[in-house]
């Protein structure tokens, strides 16, 4: 049995195909992260100066922001908000979906799968090569968020700047959330011949995750959200504790990594065993 060693030619092809998506989204993420890093500390400082917060406002704010927005320093809370902001999550998810639905659905849809699979590489080696290219682009995307936060923080009160070493932990946690979304995309993409279906499936998963997390944070007493929240990827992503204390939530990391590996393995098995017909 041939070892599934990544093929440099296939990695190069995958990177070339995803180049513009990665560059444009990483540029957008850098800019948005920088803007949030610049603006949010001011907003949070004003919020925390209020002596009275109407009932429900705190809960709603926490639900929208997915963190406890009242305990912690201004900088920690502001940057936690930045790193869990819906726009950041949405753009990350978009990148994962665009890149990870290429193999196999996009290739079948545009008819290039005949040329691709006629090459002398095993399907597993193809999948490993695509994954390697994807993870490289993931590094660029995630680094751009970190770099944007760092850049934006240069223009604020130094007291509001977070610990950037701790921020690496948060980015690592975010990376695992991203890989779960991406591996869902891989699994959907090798199962269907239509890219639209794969994209829709992953979008639904992501929206479900955000919604369940939002509802649970808004009202933790809701029974059905309590039961379902373990299915939300955002339940395993809590930036404020990591940012303020530098603690590594090993359980969350383990759950996300385990989910990613499982989904990736299922996708690999499916790709190796399935028949491929063109549309």
């Amino acid at each position, binding site marked *: 049995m041939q070892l599934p060693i990544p093929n*440099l030619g296939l990695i190069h092809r995958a990177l070339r195909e995803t180049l513009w998506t990665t560059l444009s989204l990483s540029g957008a993420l850098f800019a948005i992260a920088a803007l949030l890093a610049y603006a949010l500390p001011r907003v949070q400082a004003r919020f925390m100066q209020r002596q009275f917060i109407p009932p429900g406002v705190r809960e709603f704010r926490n639900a929208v922001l997915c963190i406890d927005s009242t305990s912690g320093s201004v900088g920690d809370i502001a940057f936690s908000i930045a790193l869990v902001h819906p726009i950041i999550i949405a753009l990350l998810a978009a990148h994962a979906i665009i890149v990870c639905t290429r193999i196999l659905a996009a290739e079948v849809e545009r008819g*290039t799968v005949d040329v691709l*699979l006629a*090459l002398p590489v*095993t399907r597993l080696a193809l999948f490993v090569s695509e994954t390697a290219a994807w993870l490289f682009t993931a590094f660029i995307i995630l680094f751009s968020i970190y770099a944007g936060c760092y850049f934006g923080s240069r223009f604020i009160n130094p007291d509001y700047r977070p610990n950037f070493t701790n921020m690496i932990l948060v980015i690592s946690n975010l990376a695992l959330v991203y890989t779960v979304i991406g591996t869902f995309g891989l699994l959907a993409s090798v199962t269907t011949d239509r890219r639209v279906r794969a994209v829709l499936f992953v979008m639904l998963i992501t929206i479900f995750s955000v919604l369940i997390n939002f509802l649970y944070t808004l009202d933790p007493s809701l029974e059905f959200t309590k039961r379902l929240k373990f299915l939300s990827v955002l339940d395993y992503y809590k930036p404020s504790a990591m940012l303020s204390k530098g603690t590594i939530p090993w359980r969350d990391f383990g759950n996300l990594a385990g989910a990613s590996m499982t989904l990736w393995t299922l996708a690999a098995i499916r790709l190796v065993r399935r028949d491929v017909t063109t549309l």
Partner: protein
Amino acid sequence: MTNLAIELSHLTRTYGSRRGISDVNLNVAEGSLFGFLGPNGAGKTTAIRVLLGFLRPTTGTARALNVDCWHDSARLKADVGSIPGDLRLWPWLTGISALKLFASIRRREMIPQGKILADELELDLAVPVRKMSRGMRQKLGLILALAHQPRLLILDEPTTALDPLMQDRLRKILRKMATAGHTVFFSSHTLGEVEELCERIAIVKQGQIVADGTLDDLRANVGREVAIAWQSPADASWPVPSGLTLTSRTQSHWQGTHSGDPRDLLAFLASKPVQDVSITKVDLETLFRRFYE
């Protein structure tokens, strides 16, 4: 003992309740030019996709170059060049970047031979695929299939979109490759080109092989085309000679096919008021239609 480039043994591939190919047995010798004919939906592309490891056989086996087409697909494809019936390439490629990319993936030198082929097929390798016409893309696909000098070529309608001059050039290239010991297996609807190029053909109908052999063998089975014009009205009492099957009979013309010893026919005609007679080998189109009727 002839080495076989392709061995299909009781090969069946179904799509749920729909048949693709059914109990196909086919052997293709190494170094031969083999034509694979059939109308749309007959199962040609299914057979090719099984050979290339895209589809797993439902039952039976498919082997090429002594390896299993499904389980050892990657190993097989190192020595195979193929072009699909509907070729699509990534639009950002140029000819030269495609050769570099494929050479990198195949871990074989392809650029020198690719450039030679590009000259022969008159393709500018600097043009990006998104700006190429269909014919140009087809040329590039052929170059990518041939440049690594594969032992086995599996070509699905290779001359699609090529002009007659390029079709000639391609035929010359394929003949040269077959002479050098490479095997060419191709499916085509262009019967004239198959007739000109191939030593052996197989005809597939509704998923099964209905004919498999050299053109001469197949023609011998089917007979010769005979057309007789009579000087004076043909007598209804004239016995039709053995071996002659008439498809059309009037007082002035007889038309049909003759199989068997042609001397019987000639002896019959010698004593009759024949104005004109034509005895010709069945062409491939007629052969093809016969197997389909």
